[in-house]
């Protein structure tokens, strides 16, 4: 549930109808079947308008990524803090209009970041935003007030990009609850849901491993 921009409205489509509606920016249209969907759809409203007016860049290296989900980090004194993490670009963002983006190829972001990393390592600064007591740590759709303390905790350096097809990341399940010591899940229920669902999907995916199209050069047993 990483998010590419801090001002992107968050939708949390627990049911398919509200997810589709949110993606289509149709918060107020359509006949909501019940009050629950109506409420959820109204919360999701804004994605469509945001997508039309948001500042776009033409590179992953110029984008900010946000965890949305909260996690509990333990500091050097043993005290626990509920945080959300962000990766802030060190490359200077250059705004590109949606019209210009429409002229590019369908995979230009992948091509661009590969070329950029070939030219030199790319870096993002890892920042954690610390919740105050009472902040909605259990709901990734709810923003925390903008004045929360932010702590710079590290740097992500990308030195090499490998294609997924035969790369070392393909056969790994990226389970958001597998965390190093000092970090653990919070009261946010989504990482657990993802862990459970990913374990099942990973099983189904690996069961069909032999049918995966591979390139001849990087073929693995």
């Amino acid at each position, binding site marked *: 549930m990483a998010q590419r921009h801090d001002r992107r409205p968050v939708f949390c489509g627990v049911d398919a109808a509200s997810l589709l509606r949110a993606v289509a920016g149709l918060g107020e249209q359509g006949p909501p079947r019940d009050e629950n969907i109506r409420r959820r759809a109204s919360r999701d409203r804004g994605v469509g308008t945001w997508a039309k007016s948001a500042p776009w860049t033409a590179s992953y290296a110029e984008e900010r990524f946000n965890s949305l989900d909260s996690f509990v980090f333990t500091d050097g004194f043993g005290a626990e803090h509920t945080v959300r993490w962000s990766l802030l670009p060190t490359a200077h963002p250059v705004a590109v209009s949606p019209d210009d983006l429409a002229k590019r190829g369908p995979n230009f972001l992948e091509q661009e970041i590969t070329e950029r990393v070939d030219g030199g390592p790319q870096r993002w600064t890892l920042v954690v935003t610390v919740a105050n007591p009472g902040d909605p740590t259990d709901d990734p759709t709810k923003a925390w007030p903008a004045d929360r303390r932010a702590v710079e905790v590290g740097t992500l350096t990308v030195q090499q990009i490998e294609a997924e097809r035969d790369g070392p990341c393909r*056969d*790994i*399940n990226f*389970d958001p*609850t*597998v965390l190093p*010591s000092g970090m653990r*899940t919070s*009261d946010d*229920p989504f990482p*657990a*849901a993802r*862990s*459970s*669902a990913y374990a*099942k999907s*990973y*099983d189904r*995916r*690996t*069961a069909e*491993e*032999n049918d995966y199209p591979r390139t001849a050069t990087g073929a693995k*047993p």
Partner: protein
Amino acid sequence: MIGAKTGGRRRFTPLQRLLHWLMAVCILAMLFIGVGMVSTVMPKYLTLVSIHKPLGIAILVLALIRLVVSLRYGAPALPAELPAPMKLAAHLSHYAFYALMIGMPLLGWGMLSAAAYPVVLFGGVHLPAILPLSGSLHALLWDAHFYLAFAFFGLILLHVAAALFHALVRRDGVFDAMAPVPARGEIAPAE
């Protein structure tokens, strides 16, 4: 039932009975935790998984101890009048029990290893991987772990049915051999 030595005992040794009933509780809990775990996406999923892994390793350790104890002390002889097919079923079911008690934790451990998941026990202790990263191996072991768990549950139901049959219908002392406390009215055998 594994091991030929009986020492002429009518009951299993206290250590064997302790291991049996301790493992019975652990394994039953384990089966229900497993079914609950794969049936939910709620936060309790993480809690159940974090119990399932260390409990599985605990069962593996207990099963290995029990195997050694069983080879050392054997089992009381089945009643001579027990029909041969029932004796055979009793022996085979116990081989199946040991295979599952030792095999299931190893399948689970191997399955996690093949997916390069960390195997974390209580207190943050990490177990090493016992298999290399392999998607097809993971899928195979996952299926084996999943379906054998139901087979294990079926075996336990048969085991309980047989135990009750011995205790309530045949009343031949087979149940008392593993009962946690001696049946009332039982007279200690003369030395």
